[in-house]
């Protein structure tokens, strides 16, 4: 899968906070209006969905009523089924990220520091990583079977490259002028690392983690649908087999929400921990 940066929305500049109250109320109005316009499409879909159910346009097995989906969602959320499936999936993501992302970070940092290492290992690593994770899946299934090792390996593969690329770029990104200032100030190696290299590299590494998380989440769903006895992807595939489409709807929503939460959480963390970061 290929993902792109989010749709640009009309973001409010921070400077607006300073404006007088009268203006602010028109802004509240504008915001409410934007929300109302944005809600038209989902409400229309909901209306068509309800009408289709009322008129029995599709079998209820295939198109459950909105209310049924809602009730099932509440039931799964409060019953703990969803929480335990999600916990299994998230644990896999974290372990895989620690392994693959950790290796990617180490490799990226080393190759970013050393031109020689990069000349030897860089091209090979970049070529291998061009092959999408989905294509590796059959090979991994033959080598690792369908147990927990498979999930770990697939997520490690999916998280390695974003961290490799971004830590690599992070090491080479500090502007030359910063290093010149460091020369003038006669910083020692440790001070240079702490004051120049790490602050310059950290935002990129954080971006790498964010991309890696999103990659990991996407491929994990595929692996869990194919070969798993637990996790949110398995829950979805299994309810599809049993024709419990209401559960499928709920899991799709949960998969989307979890992916979004991880992304938004990382962005938030980036802003809080690295106020100097541009992104």
């Amino acid at each position, binding site marked *: *899968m*290929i*993902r*792109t*940066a*989010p*749709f*640009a*929305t*009309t973001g409010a500049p921070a400077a607006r906070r300073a404006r007088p109250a009268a203006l602010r109320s028109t802004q509240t109005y504008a915001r409410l209006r*934007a929300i109302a*316009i*944005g*809600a*038209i*499409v*989902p409400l229309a*879909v909901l209306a068509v969905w309800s009408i289709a159910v009322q008129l029995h346009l599709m079998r209820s097995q*295939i*198109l459950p009523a909105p209310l049924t989906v809602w009730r099932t969602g509440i039931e799964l959320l409060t019953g703990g089924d969803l929480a335990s499936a999600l916990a299994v999936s998230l644990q896999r993501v974290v372990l895989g990220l620690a392994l693959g992302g950790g290796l990617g970070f180490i490799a990226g940092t080393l190759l970013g520091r050393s031109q020689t290492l990069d*000349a*030897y290992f860089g*091209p*090979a690593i970049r*070529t291998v990583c061009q*092959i*999408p*994770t*989905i*294509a*590796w899946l*059959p*090979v991994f*299934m*033959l*080598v690792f079977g369908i147990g927990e090792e498979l999930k770990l390996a697939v997520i490690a593969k*999916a998280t390695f490259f974003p961290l490799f690329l971004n830590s690599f770029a992070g090491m*080479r990104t500090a502007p*030359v002028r910063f290093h010149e200032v460091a020369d003038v100030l006669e910083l020692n190696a440790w001070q240079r690392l702490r004051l120049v290299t790490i602050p310059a590299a950290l935002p990129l590494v954080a971006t790498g983690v964010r*991309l890696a998380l999103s*990659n990991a989440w*996407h*491929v994990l*769903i*595929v692996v869990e*649908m*194919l070969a798993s006895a637990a996790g949110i992807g398995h829950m*979805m*595939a299994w*309810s*599809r087999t049993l*024709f419990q*489409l209401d559960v*499928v709807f709920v*899991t799709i929503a949960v*998969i*989307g*929400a979890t*992916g*979004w939460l991880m992304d938004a959480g990382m962005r938030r963390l980036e802003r809080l921990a690295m106020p100097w970061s541009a992104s």
Partner: protein
Amino acid sequence: MIRTARAPRIDWRAYVVPLGCVLLWVWAASTGRWNPHLLVPPQQLAIGFAQSARNPELWLALGTSLARLAAGFLLGSIAGIAVGVAVGCSRFAERLITPSLDSVRQVALFAWIPLLTAWFGDGDAAKVILIALAAFFPAALNAQSGCRQAPAALLEVGRVLEFDALTRLRRIILPSARPSIAAGLQIALTSAWIGTIGAEYLIDQGAGLGVFLASARMDNRMDVVIVCIVLLGFTGCALSALVRWVFQKGAPVRGVVLVDD
């Protein structure tokens, strides 16, 4: 670190590691200590390639996948460009559609498969829709950002000349959005190709390279699996080269490019 530009020179150091890996592979296979089903010996891989090249089923599978890709890509990219241009040109369309699209985009692509197969069956319809979905978002996002990049000066000229909306779109906005749209199509095609293989592999019904791959895995034929992966890799590269070639006359390809899996 500014490096001076010089003529690209082949760096022999890039070949040391791959060569080492190949030697290691040959040596490891020759000791016979590892399972030859997993660690395929070089001669067997060569036989696998030769056999596969003569296997009409493989080429038929590739053809089926490409046809499916074409259908899904056309559907998804045309819809994507249309939506992207609408959202890029009209504030109202943006406010109307963007929140919904952003929500749908959060769901991992292949997570739609259970729903699509329940609605449209295991046949071509579900796969083509998934491929279209894979192509839709890159095409839409890049078309949108391209339309936004129309230079203000040109738009002003259009206002002075009292262009109607259609003329403005045709003469000003689309030409300046062209590089972005081209970049979007290139990403959309790669994305759709991955979607094709993934859909075939996951749904595992009918024909196609993904189905062929899945059955090779079931048969424990690592050599055939490797052949398939090489084939799909080359096809992917060839497809993006094709799009680049088609749009060569346009400005250099720029766009929102964040490739992942």
